[in-house]
C-alpha cells in the first residue's frame, strides 16, 4: 500500500541560542532552572511603554547558521510583528521575521532550506490545580530568549532521511557553538509537516499535517512513520487526511488530534516599527563567514587527508567538535615531543580509553607512550588471545606458513572478543610473539 504513495515531508525546527542575554533586552538567556518570573524586565514582560533593541550576537549567529547551511544572505532584512493572543505571549505579538528573513535558499544533505530567521521565545505554561480548580500558570523567564527558526522545503521522502537530516543539522549547530540544541531541555524543537502523494503525480498534495510534541530524533522518525501509515490508510479509503495539527504520544506510539484550528491564523504581519532594518555590507558578512569554524564535512575530508585515517574513523572523531579538537591538539603535541602514530592516538580516543573531558591531550600521549613501551597484555586479554588461536587452527597454520596477512583476521577476532577494548597493535604483537615462539 505504501508503495503507491510517497511521503512529502518538511521540517520546521526552532533552536534556542545560547547568547548571554535575551533577544531584545539584557535579561539572562540561560533561563532554565530559575525561580519563576525572576528573570524578566519591562521589555520581555511586555509592560506598557517598553521597547525592544535587538541582540547583535544573536543576529550574527543566525546569519552564521544560514551560511553554514549554504544559504543566500540577502543584503536587506527586517523584523516584523506576528500578531496573535496567547497567555504566554506578553505583548500580544511576537517579534519575528516575515518576508525578509536573514537567510534563504540553502541546502543540507540535498534537502532544501527555505529560510533561516530570527524570533523571540514565549513564556512557559504549566497546567496545575489550585484550590481544586484547573488553571494554567505562566512563567515569563523564557520570554524573549533568542530563537532561530529553520524551515525546510518539503524535500524529505522518508522518516530515516528526516532523522539523518536532523542529526546533521544538530551537529552543525553544535559545531558553530550557537546552541546546545538539546531536544530534552527544549533548546531544539521540531515539527514535521507530512503528507502523501501518489507516486507519479506532481505538485504538492492538497493537505498537510503538522505534528508537535516530539522530543527526540527517534521519536520524530516514529511519528513520521505513524503518520505515513495513517495517511495511506485514509487515502486508500478515498478520504483525504484532515489538515490539522496533531500531537505525538510517545507512550501510546500514536498521534492524536489537537483541537484543530480550521482556519489558518491571521497574523496580520507588518514591519516592526520599533526596530530599524538591517542592511549588510560585504565586509560585515565576510567577517561573520570568516568566524565560522570548519564544518563537519570539511573537517572529515581534511582529517582523512592530513592524518591518513579512514572515513569511518574520521567520522567518529569529528562527531563532536570537542573530540576533533582534542585529537588535533594531541597530534600536534605528539609531533613535537612524542612521535606517536596518529592511528594509535585516534584509536585511543575512538575507543574511549580515556575520558577526554578529564584527561588532557598531553596526559593521553604520556599514557600511550608508557603502554607502547611494553607489550602489556593482561591475563584476561591473554586468555582471549589463546582462545582465538585455539579456535582458529587453520589461520594459525597459514600464518606460520608465511601468510602474514592472516594476522589481521586473528587480531580482529580478538578485538571482537574484547569488544575493542584492547589495543589492536599490542594484540597483534602478542599474537606474533606467541606464534613465533611455538
Amino acid at each position, binding site marked *: 500500500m505504501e508503495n503507491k504513495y510517497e511521503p512529502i515531508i518538511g521540517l520546521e525546527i526552532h533552536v534556542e541560542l545560547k547568547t548571554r542575554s535575551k533577544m531584545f533586552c539584557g535579561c539572562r538567556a540561560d533561563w532554565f532552572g530559575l525561580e519563576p518570573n525572576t528573570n524578566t524586565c*519591562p521589555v520581555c*514582560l*511586555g*509592560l*506598557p*511603554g*517598553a*521597547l*525592544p*533593541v*535587538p541582540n547583535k550576537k544573536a543576529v550574527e549567529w543566525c546569519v552564521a547558521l544560514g551560511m553554514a547551511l549554504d544559504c543566500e544572505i540577502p543584503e536587506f532584512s527586517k523584523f516584523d*510583528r506576528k*500578531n496573535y*493572543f496567547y*497567555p504566554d505571549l*506578553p*505583548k*500580544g*505579538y511576537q517579534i519575528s521575521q516575515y518576508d525578509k528573513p536573514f537567510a534563504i535558499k540553502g541546502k543540507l544533505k540535498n534537502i532544501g532550506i527555505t529560510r533561516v530567521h530570527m524570533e523571540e521565545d514565549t513564556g512557559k505554561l504549566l497546567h496545575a490545580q489550585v484550590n481544586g480548580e484547573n488553571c494554567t500558570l*505562566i512563567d*515569563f523567564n523564557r520570554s524573549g530568549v533568542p530563537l532561530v527558526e529553520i524551515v525546510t522545503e518539503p524535500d524529505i521522502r522518508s522518516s530515516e532521511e528526516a532523522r539523518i537530516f536532523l542529526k546533521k543539522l544538530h551537529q552543525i549547530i553544535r559545531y558553530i557553538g550557537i546552541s546546545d540544541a538539546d531536544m530534552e531541555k527544549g533548546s531544539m524543537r521540531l515539527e514535521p509537516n507530512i503528507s502523501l502523494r501518489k507516486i507519479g503525480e506532481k505538485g504538492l498534495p492538497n493537505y498537510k499535517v503538522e505534528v508537535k510534541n516530539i522530543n527526540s530524533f527517534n521519536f520524530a522518525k516514529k511519528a513520521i512513520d505513524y503518520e505515513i501509515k495513517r495517511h495511506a490508510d485514509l487515502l486508500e479509503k478515498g478520504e483525504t487526511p484532515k489538515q490539522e495539527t496533531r500531537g505525538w504520544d510517545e507512550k501510546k506510539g500514536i498521534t492524536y488530534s489537537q483541537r484543530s484550528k480550521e482556519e489558518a491564523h*491571521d497574523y*496580520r504581519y*507588518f514591519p516592526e*516599527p*520599533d*526596530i*530599524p532594518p538591517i542592511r549588510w555590507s560585504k565586509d560585515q558578512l565576510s567577517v561573520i563567514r570568516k568566524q565560522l569554524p570548519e564544518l563537519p564535512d570539511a573537517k572529515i575530508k581534511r582529517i582523512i587527508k592530513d592524518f591518513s585515517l579512514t572515513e569511518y574513523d574520521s567520522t567518529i572523531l569529528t562527531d563532536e567538535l570537542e573530540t576533533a579538537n582534542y585529537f588535533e591538539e594531541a597530534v600536534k603535541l605528539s609531533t613535537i615531543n612524542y612521535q606517536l602514530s596518529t592511528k594509535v592516538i585516534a584509536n585511543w580516543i575512538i575507543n574511549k580509553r580515556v575520558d577526554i573531558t578529564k584527561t588532557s591531550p598531553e596526559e593521553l600521549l604520556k599514557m600511550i607512550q608508557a603502554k607502547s613501551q611494553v607489550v602489556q597484555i593482561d591475563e584476561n586479554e591473554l586468555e582471549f588471545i589463546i582462545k582465538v588461536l585455539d579456535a582458529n587452527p587453520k589461520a594459525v597454520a597459514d600464518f606460520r606458513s608465511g601468510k602474514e596477512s592472516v594476522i589481521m583476521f586473528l587480531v580482529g577476532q580478538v578485538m571482537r572478543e574484547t569488544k575493542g577494548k584492547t589495543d589492536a597493535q599490542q594484540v597483534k604483537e602478542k599474537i606474533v610473539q606467541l606464534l613465533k615462539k611455538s
Partner: protein
Amino acid sequence: MKNDITELTIKELLNSLAKKEFSSIELIDAYLKNINSFEENIKAFITLLDREEIHAKIKNLKFKIKNLSGLPFSLKDAYITQDTTTTAGSKILDGYKPKYNATVYQKLLDNGAVLIGKNSQDAWGHGSTSENTDYDIPRNPYDLNRVAGGSSGGSAAAVAANMVPFAIGEDTGGSIRNPASFCNITGLKVTYGRVSRYGAIAYASSLDTVGPMAKSVEDIAYILSIIAGKDPYDATTSPNPVPNYIENLSRDIKNKIIGVPKEFFQDGTDKEVIQKVRDALKIFEKLGANICEVSIPSIDIGVAAYYLLAPSETSSNLARYDGIRFGHSRDKFTQETMRRIMIGTYALSAGYYDAYYKKSLKARTLIINDYNNAFKKCDMLIGPVNPTPAPKFGELISDPVQLMLSDVYTLTQNIAGIPSLALPCGFTESGLPIGMQIMGKMFSEETILQAGFAYQQATDWHKRKPKL
C-alpha cells in the same frame, strides 16, 4: 509676596532659585496653591502627588544642584512613573503602579526637577479633545465650557492655569500642538527619534513623539536640551548630537524664507484663525523673513493615511493589555478606542493589508516627498494648528469622521517625522486662543525655535493669562 512667581519663565525661575529669592518649597507651594484654587474646575490631573511626598523629594535635592533644581512639572499620564499611578487615561490601567521610569522622566529627575502630578488625556492618545477619557475631562482655562484639546489636554490646561511651569506631552497626530493652540501655550512636536519613547505608553510607534509644553519658546528650549538625545533603550532614537538650543535661540531670522502651504488655508477653516496666522506672517516679514507660497498637496489624503497607519499600529500596541500581568479586562476600552483598534485590525488583516496598510505606507512616501519639495524652497513652513478655535464639549466626539477631519493640519507632520512648534498668535473676538505652527525639516528644531523666539520677542500673545 510671590503670588506671581508661578508666572515666571523657567529661565527666571532658575535664576531666582539660584539667587535664593525663594526656595523650591515656596515655589512648589505657590503652584500647589493654584492647583488648590483651580483644579476643581480645570481637571488637569488624574493623579496629584501628596504635598508631603513632594516636599520630601525636594529635601533630598538639597545636595545636588542640577539644571532644573527643584522645578516642579507634570507628565501626561501616558508616561511610566515608578510607583506613581499611570493610566494613559484609561480604566484598563486604573490603579496601575509601574516598576520602572520612562527615560524622559528619569532625565528630568536626574536634573533635579520634581514631579507633582500626571495629567488627564484622551485614553491611549486616541483623540483630539481629551473627551475620550475614563477620568474627568479637562477644561479649557480660557472657557470652561470648551475642550482643552487633545490628547495632551490636561498638560496644556495645567501649564495655561499656572499649575506647573512645564509639562511633557506626547504628539502622535497633533496631540501636543492641538491643546497648546487651544490653551494659548507653546508646545513642541519634535523630530521623530529626537527624544526617547522608552516608557511612553505607545499609541502609534512610528508616529509617537515626546515633547515639552510650556509658556514660551525659551522655556521649551530649556526642557528640550535636557530630554533630547540617543537612548540605548529606544532603537529609533537618533545618534545626531543634541545642539545647544538655548545658546543659539536668539539668532535673528533675517532673510530666512518662510513657506506658506496653500492647502493649510482651506475652506472650512475659521476666518479668524486664518486672519491671525496671516497677521503673524506680517510680523515675520517685519522681522526680516521672506514669505513664499508652497504646496503640500497630500495633506488631505494624509487624514486617510493617518487613520490607517495609527489605528493599525495601535491595534498591535494595545494587544498587551490582556489583564494577565497587569491592568483590567479588555471590555473596559472606550468605544472610541475599540473603533480605532478595529479599524487597525481590519486594515492589517489578510486580504486587506495591501489595499490599506501597505497603501498608507506608500502614501507616507508621497507625503515625505511633498515636505521635502517644499523645504527646497524655504527654511520653514507656517500654518494654523486647528481649523477652528476650541469647540464646546460634545461637538466633535460624537462624530468620528468630523473628529478625524479636525486634525487635518497636524497629522502629516507625524507621518513625515518632521518637527513642528505650536505657539499662540492671537485670539478670536470672543477671547478664544488661536495658535500657529512653525514646521521645519527633520532635526531643524534650532531653526524653528529661533523663529518662534523671535516672534515671541515681538509679540505678547503668549503672556496673556486666562481669567480664573
